[in-house]
């Protein structure tokens, strides 16, 4: 018997829905960059967002992280409405992201980048830092320890004291993911993590992604063009085209959808 008062944040198979986006729209001038996009991502899932260039994928990320405010529609993390909140607040509520064009803190060290991500997880007020009260020293040691643990996971520990801008490209991408993970997110948004990587680096990246899923049980939404990566690790897909949903469902069926093939390859 259908339960009419069904909880909207529980999927049909009984799993919790971590991210629910309802009818997200955003308009720039007369252009509808994202038009009625709906997402529901279950806990622990690896969800792919794909589509041709200019389909509005990154705009969806920007909506979900508060960079843009949606013209209409709402989105929820674990049932909490985050629509219209500022980027920093959304991050603290549990959504972290990486960027298509890497955005590291170039003049800070690798360890310090991660420590910025750790944010306020270890309490120490401005006052305590300015006047070097005991808690400052305790907090600093703790920050360093936590950052090093995380860097170990990403095989970046040996670079801890290098400036982030001096890292090679592939390691910069990994550091960005490490920094995002440092904010202790429920949902991780990865914007073209394999862009510009060679096949070896892509393989290594796929291993890292699988590893952090196992280790932290995190839910991931990722944008990608590399079809090998998408078909290799994504469980569910949404395909965007011209800002609207073209197809959605499990990876294999979506990738065989004639509409999707048409959008990618043409007639």
């Amino acid at each position, binding site marked *: 018997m259908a339960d009419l008062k069904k909880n909207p944040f529980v999927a049909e198979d009984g799993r919790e829905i971590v991210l629910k986006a309802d009818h997200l729209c955003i308009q720039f001038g007369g252009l509808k960059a994202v038009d009625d996009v709906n997402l529901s991502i279950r806990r622990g899932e690896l969800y792919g967002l794909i589509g041709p260039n200019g389909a509005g994928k*990154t705009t969806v990320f*920007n909506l979900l992280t508060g*960079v843009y405010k949606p013209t209409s529609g709402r989105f929820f993390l674990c049932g909490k409405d985050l629509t219209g909140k500022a980027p920093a607040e959304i991050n603290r509520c549990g959504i972290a992201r990486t*960027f298509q064009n890497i955005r590291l803190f170039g003049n800070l060290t690798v360890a310090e980048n991660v420590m910025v991500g750790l944010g306020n997880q270890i309490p120490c007020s401005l006052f305590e830092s300015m006047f070097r009260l005991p808690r400052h020293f305790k907090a600093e040691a703790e920050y360093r320890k936590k950052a090093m643990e995380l860097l170990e996971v990403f095989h970046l520990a040996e670079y801890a004291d290098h400036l982030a801008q001096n890292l090679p490209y592939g390691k910069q991408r990994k550091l960005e993911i490490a920094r995002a993970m440092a904010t202790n997110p429920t949902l991780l948004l990865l914007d073209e993590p394999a862009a510009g990587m060679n096949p070896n680096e892509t393989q290594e990246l796929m291993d890292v992604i699988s590893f952090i899923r196992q280790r932290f049980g995190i839910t991931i939404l990722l944008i990608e063009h590399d079809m090998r990566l998408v078909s290799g690790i994504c469980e569910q897909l949404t395909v965007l085209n011209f800002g609207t949903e073209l197809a959605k469902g499990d990876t294999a069926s979506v990738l065989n959808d004639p509409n999707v093939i048409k959008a990618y390859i043409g007639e």
Partner: protein
Amino acid sequence: MDFLSALINGLSSGGTYAIIALGYTMVYGIAKMLNFAHGDVIMVGGYTMFLTLMALGHPLVALAAATVFCVILGVTIERLAYRPLRGASPLAVLITAIGVSFLLQSLAQIIFGSSPKMLVQLQISGGITLGALSIDYSTLLTLAVTAVVMVVLSLFVKYSKTGRAMVAVSEDRDAALLMGVNTNAIIAITFAIGSALAAIAGYLMLCKAPSLSNTMGAMPGIKAFTAAVIGGIGSIPGAMLGGILLGVVESISYSVPALAPFTDAVEFSILILVLLVRPSGILGKMRREKV
């Protein structure tokens, strides 16, 4: 009638601001930098006129000499100080421009001393009277020159090949380069035009008040930059609008006894108010950083 004459004076000094602001705004639009030394180019033009007047004696010859010299100076500054920094952080470029400004001011003081020079040959006195309203000839000249400059510049940017290349460079320098636009040449031409306008503005300023010192261009330069920002920096109509607006506000503020001493504060407050409401100025385009 007081208000009307304040308005006309405001239009005139606003015209001068607008001509200087055009130099700031074009350089900003095309080279993406704040040329802090632009005001001091006016001052160099003033001293060029001073020297030419001593040697040859004719104001128009002096103006021509100043224009030529300012163009050479502007292009040289761009080549030596700014071009090496293309692609560097905006902060570095701005600080260099501040350095150039100081350099010009102190050079002028070393060469010409700190006591002001009077260029009475340039002064245009007298005026016309319409009923109770009297308008100086210098005011009329400024208004006429401003109008001509605006029309010519707008036509140049819109219809000439160089002008269109300028628009292309300001939209996207790399794309323009790929389309075969010589961006370095376009930027140099922009500095040349801006510097020529600075010389003209210097001439207009000295027509009204013929006192010349090494800091003559500093405050008008800052005010004109303020005007360019109010109008929306990078926008040519914006520079005109901002310049006129600032000139009128200044003149009206001067004419109100209670406000007169606070005129600078009033002008700068307008800048802050406009930017708080429209962070890119009145006619400026919002440039969102792409994420």
